[in-house]
């Protein structure tokens, strides 16, 4: 049972898919030397033709990938910072996503957009600390946010094999998580995972926050029985799995590193209340509305959803229903 880091799990997934399918290729900035420490060694093994360094022309290389996908390849783009997804939003949303319907089913666009280190990397400040996964769930691009090394491997592999565009967020807060992994296998899209069973409240935690949720659940173990649900894929979302959990616990708290308004937490809560009657009003712990992460570390932390806030939300939820 090898011990694998989340970062290395991503490297393994890329290597395995590059080896398995000649149609797969990787492009991005500084991927040959592996500045992100994710693509390390891949250029040496697979060559500069399939592991391509790009100029700083994000819009062009994103659409270049769309064109290559239309011609039958399976590009994987690595973006160095989450906000680069803002810069190529047009190319992903208005082109890659829309081609199959607009052409009446003549084509598919199997591109994977990988963002290693999404969310806050302490000290990278306002323009480098976004966690914009909810934007892609809104436009309907498949969006995954793995929390563990096994899921990072399994979901990245699945994303690369998927026939539509997929955005893979690898949260900075999860990149150094290590895990004992028996077997590395593909993980299906749209299937959540219960990391911890509980009877009183279901906490839905996204990405790196899964680990914080598990820590809080342990802390509270003698007072509240907390179930921790990790959706893994945000779009499509495993509402059946979650509904089953909430039907048992009767209570829901969502722990989401995205902005509050129109974020995943709102989607999750709405999808649940459409189906399940709760014993207490649902709660969400998120970034504030319109969050911009300030540079100073204490402020950066203050803007991110924290364990204390989750603990409070769980206690309040229990109180509301007693």
């Amino acid at each position: 049972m090898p011990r694998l880091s989340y970062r290395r799990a991503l490297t393994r997934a890329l290597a395995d898919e590059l080896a398995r399918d000649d149609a797969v290729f990787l492009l991005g900035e500084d991927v040959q030397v592996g500045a992100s420490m994710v693509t390390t060694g891949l250029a040496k093994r697979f060559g500069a033709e399939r592991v391509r360094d790009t100029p700083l022309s994000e819009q062009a290389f994103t659409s270049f990938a769309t064109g290559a996908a239309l011609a039958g390849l399976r590009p994987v783009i690595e973006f160095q910072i989450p906000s680069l997804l803002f810069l190529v939003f047009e190319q992903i949303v208005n082109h890659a996503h829309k081609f199959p319907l607009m052409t009446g089913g003549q084509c598919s666009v199997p591109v994977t957009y990988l963002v290693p280190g999404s969310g806050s990397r302490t000290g990278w400040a306002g323009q480098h600390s976004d966690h914009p996964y909810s934007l892609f769930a809104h436009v309907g691009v498949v969006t995954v946010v793995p929390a563990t090394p096994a899921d990072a491997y399994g979901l990245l592999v699945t994303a690369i094999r998927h026939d539509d565009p997929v955005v893979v967020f690898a949260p900075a807060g999860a990149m150094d998580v290590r895990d004992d992994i028996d077997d590395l296998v593909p993980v299906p899209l749209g299937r959540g995972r219960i990391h911890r069973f509980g009877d009183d409240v279901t906490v839905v935690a996204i990405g790196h926050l899964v680990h914080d949720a598990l820590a809080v659940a342990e802390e509270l173990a003698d007072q509240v029985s907390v179930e921790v649900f990790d959706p893994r894929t945000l779009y499509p979302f495993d509402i059946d799995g979650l509904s089953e959990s909430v039907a048992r616990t009767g209570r829901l708290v969502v722990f989401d590193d995205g902005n509050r308004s129109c974020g995943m937490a709102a989607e999750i809560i709405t999808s649940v209340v459409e189906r399940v009657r709760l014993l207490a009003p649902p709660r969400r712990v998120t970034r504030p509305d319109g969050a911009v992460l300030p540079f100073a570390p204490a402020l950066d932390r203050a803007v991110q959803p924290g364990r204390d806030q989750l603990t409070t939300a769980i206690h309040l939820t229990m109180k509301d229903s007693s």
Partner: protein
Amino acid sequence: MTEADPVRLYRTVRLIRRFEERAVELVHGGQIVGGIHPYLGQEGIAAGVCAALGADDVLAGTHRGHGHVLARGADPNRMLAELCGRTTGLNAGRGGSMHAADLSIGVLGANAIVGASGAIITGAVWARRRQGHDTVGVSFFGDGAVNEGMLLEAFNLAALWRVPVLFVCENNGYATTMPVAGAVAGSIAGRAAAFDIPAVEVDGQDPEAVRVAASAAVGRMRAGGGPELIEARTYRFDAHHTFEHAVRLDYRAPDEVTRGRARDPVRIQGERLCDTDRAAVDAEVEATLDAAVRFALASPEPDPADALTYLYASGLTARAGGG
């Protein structure tokens, strides 16, 4: 280097001309909803460029895209059916005028976003060559597109990676109502030079001149050359978009329009045929288009229940919007 074939070239420009005139009628008649950007006056460019291409080549067009699709050899029946939103259309009625595509003949599609096609075609050509095809690509765009950063980035990628893409700038003097002089600092050819992309200027109103320039460029690209740019000087005979037929926008002087329309690519190419040949082509084109109109209007409209078919190639089904 493709052979000169005046009749074939005339047939193409004549087909596009009459197709567009019929399409405008169908817009006014309400059978084509949403209007179109007529290619009238620019037929020589699509015709001349596509005459220089081979079966393995690919192209991507613009919002003013009917000519590119037809010149590449798409079925006029299915093209017109697409504009009418019918299931028999090239895109099964899902794309319409601005997205008409036929991937089976290398038409990656018209594109409603100015400047977007350059990078897409660059990626497609690079991919096909990696797969062993001797593919070159064509990216059509207007004079307005050379101010879009995404297109200039594509110039850089294509030149850097020596991807054989022929960038064809259809300079009709205006981006909607904005004259080139008010929008382009420097020159269009200069935009190519900035990336070491060779550029030539050609009379877009002479289909044969366009074909000669294009097949020379395609020849150099097949011989291992990188991307090239052709600036085709042309003039838009009609409105930017058919909505202008209802709302008069005041930006082109009447005498300028008269002068512009005087150099007619269909007439210019037609004069290279003897009267009998020309009359034969004209009759053939009318018959083709009569059939196309009949085909399009007789074709079924899609069932609203199928509105989201094709949304996901993976077969993922989207959650409905109802309560």
